[in-house]
């Protein structure tokens, strides 16, 4: 049987195998990515996208992936801790929910039981209205809320007590409102919540900025405020929540964790490898395709950030009357 080059090429493409061998010596031999959710989700895309960029750019020799869904990520965390001794080449992807879910007691562990490597990408929260909304500024929304909290129905793409609800409650509480009386309407995902806002059934949308940036620019939606520290270069005319009087900042991050007891030198090397990735074309391609925002926070800086976010979220839960375990 004659195997032509073309057939070989077609097979290679079909199987998604890398065409060219990576150049030079890779910084890290191999990484096993542990994904706490099923194929096709946000965690899955982050881990596979990162792995792909690392291998293509030659920083990493070999990447393998394992999906382990269950318990909102709890199963994968438990697995990583139980088998820590033989997981030195494993990186688990995770994001803001690890803080929220461990505070709420959905699983008994927290980020402290793992080795934080680095936060890699992130997204700010945005408060959004319809283009024809009577609310011109965030202050208008607050005024309406103070008159009658039920007149401002807030849509979000997470459960009650989840991220979008939390940020909206934080924002209203920042100006002295009662976070308990926020009329939060949960949707399955950010896109559904946006459709709900557009259909007119809700008045305000609390979501990730990345999900509404394009529509804000095209005029299909209006972003009233963002949860960043300072005004963003991409949206110079949109104020931050801090400017409007709610002392709230929030970033939804995604990042990587190693097994507990991972040797320091290995953990540092992984962080250096991730930092080097930002300069590569392979990464830029993956990043642009997904619209990710870079927020590199390595090692100790990452741990500080997680601790600070945990304290903020715990404080908010207390004010919301949501039970927490810490």
């Amino acid at each position: 049987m004659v195997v032509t080059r073309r057939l070989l090429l077609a097979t290679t493409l079909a199987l998604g195998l890398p065409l060219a061998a990576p150049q030079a010596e890779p910084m890290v031999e191999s990484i096993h990515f542990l994904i706490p959710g099923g194929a096709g989700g946000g965690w899955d895309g982050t881990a596979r996208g990162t792995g792909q960029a690392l291998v293509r750019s030659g920083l990493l020799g070999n990447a393998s992936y394992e999906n382990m869904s269950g318990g909102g990520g709890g199963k994968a965390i438990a697995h990583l801790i139980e088998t820590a001794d033989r997981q030195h080449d494993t990186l688990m992807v995770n994001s803001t929910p690890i803080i929220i879910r461990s505070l709420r007691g959905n699983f008994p562990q927290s980020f402290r039981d793992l080795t934080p490597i680095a936060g890699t990408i992130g997204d700010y929260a945005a408060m959004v209205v319809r283009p024809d909304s009577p609310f011109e500024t965030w202050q208008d929304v607050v005024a309406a809320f103070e008159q009658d909290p039920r007149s401002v129905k807030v849509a979000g793409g997470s459960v009650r007590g989840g991220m979008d609800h939390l940020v909206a409650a934080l924002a209203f509480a920042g100006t002295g409102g009662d976070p308990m009386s926020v009329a939060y309407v949960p949707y399955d995902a950010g896109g559904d919540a946006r459709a709900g806002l557009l259909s007119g059934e809700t008045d305000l949308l609390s979501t990730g900025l990345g999900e509404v940036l394009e529509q804000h620019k095209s005029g299909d939606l209006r972003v009233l405020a963002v949860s960043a520290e300072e005004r963003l270069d991409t949206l110079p005319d949109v104020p931050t929540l801090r400017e409007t009087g709610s002392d709230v900042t929030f970033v939804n991050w995604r990042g990587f964790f190693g097994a507990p007891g991972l040797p320091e030198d290995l953990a540092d090397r992984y962080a250096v490898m991730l930092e080097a990735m930002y300069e590569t074309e392979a990464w830029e391609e993956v990043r642009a395709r997904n619209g990710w925002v870079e927020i590199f926070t390595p090692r100790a800086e990452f741990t500080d950030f997680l601790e600070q976010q945990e304290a903020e979220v715990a404080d908010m839960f207390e004010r919301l009357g949501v039970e927490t375990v810490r």
Partner: protein
Amino acid sequence: MSEGILIGLSTAMQPLNLLMVFVGCFAGTFIGMLPGLGPISAIALMIPITYGFDPAAGMILMAGVYYGAVFGGSTSSILINAPGIAGTVATAFEGYPLAQRGDAGKALAIAAYASFAGGTIGAVLLLAAAPALAAVALSFQSADYFALMVLGLTAVSAFAARGQFLKAMMMTVVGLMLATVGQDVSSDTYRFTFGQVDLLDGFSFLLIAMATFALSEALMVVLRRQMVAPEALAATKGHMGSLALSRGEIREMVPAILRASPFGFLIGVLPGAGATIASFLAYGMERNVARGEAKARFGKGSVRGLAAPETANNAASTGSFVPLLTLGIPGSGTTAVMLGALLSFGIQPGPSLFQDRPEVFWSVIVSMYLGNVILLILNLPLIPYIARLLTLPRQILVPLILFFSLIGVYLVSFNPFDIQAMVAFAAFALVFRLMDYPMAPLILAFVLGRLMEENLRRALLINDGSISFLWERPICLGITIVTIVVLAVPIFDWWRQRRVVTAGEGG
């Protein structure tokens, strides 16, 4: 719009994607031809295989599989009088007599032309209807979605085969119950998890689809061995008769196709009523329209009697994509599985898909249509060879399907618990299948259950706890009235039958 179609076309025409259609059509025809296995099983089997594919390529493969499976079902209906799925039962009415007469090739050719024409006219209507409905759908609120899903679930039971209304309703309830397992989306509490970590996320859709369709259908093949007519078996061994149609036959076929296409499409758009109802109704309509000699030929191998249901089931399949793509609501078991497939590619159908990512919206439509075209080009000349697959021993086929179902689910979750749950559900499905309970309402209710609950609870939150939206919102009120009418159909049927029986006893 034309720009969207062009982008869709140029994506679909890439060599790799064309290869996908080819592979999909072949695999789909093969699976669909096995008696008892239909498009739902075929698509469910493909979902794990296409993980990690580029969405366009994956969608195109699915489209090929889908049309292939529908066509494969017609093939086994015609050749061995064993419809792969309910949607091709009406095909056997005229197709099998034709095959017995030695005109198997002709019957298959008519089925292929009619399917193609139905799909084509359906696609044109879809191009016109989908954007218009998507625009309207933007103003749909949670309350309207809830009412529409109640309609879909009611209709799928009300239109179930005669005497199956209660059985279908029971399966709907089972599906709704299964959908409540896991994290409650509105309040973040866990329900029916019994402290099991594996149940926290609920049952995966793929698991339920594979267990209630692929696995249990394959097991049914083992349990029910159909008698096969020798003439038809002869056809499968290569004596097909001519594939060519005479001028008179074409003249008879074309008007039937033109009548059945828009009719089938409209039936398909209705939530709950799909290819099966469309094919039966189209067959009945064609028989009523026929006069004199043409009417006498019905039941003995009528060309138009074969063309009408074949056209209608394809047009209806295309029509059922209207609610799926514009509202994100599947109206039938098959589109429920399609929704699962789309979600696995990261495509969330709904009004915002059309607005935000028109290129995806159009490439789904174009690839669906391409599957239809390639099927005609490929399958027509290959019919005699493909038909021989029917003679492959079941001892080989059935284990293969069981293997692919189990491995397919495992390869997505990597969780052994899923395998155990799947086997348990397959056993449950098998028992209920043997008692003649339909499984499509179960899978539809399982998919819609979560959505329906979420939308109801949102509507209640927005209305501060009052259900007045059911009659205060005009769209909601309209849909609710249709639901009540649909529900009255089987009740009226039952009442009329009872009256006939009592009258008979009295006389």
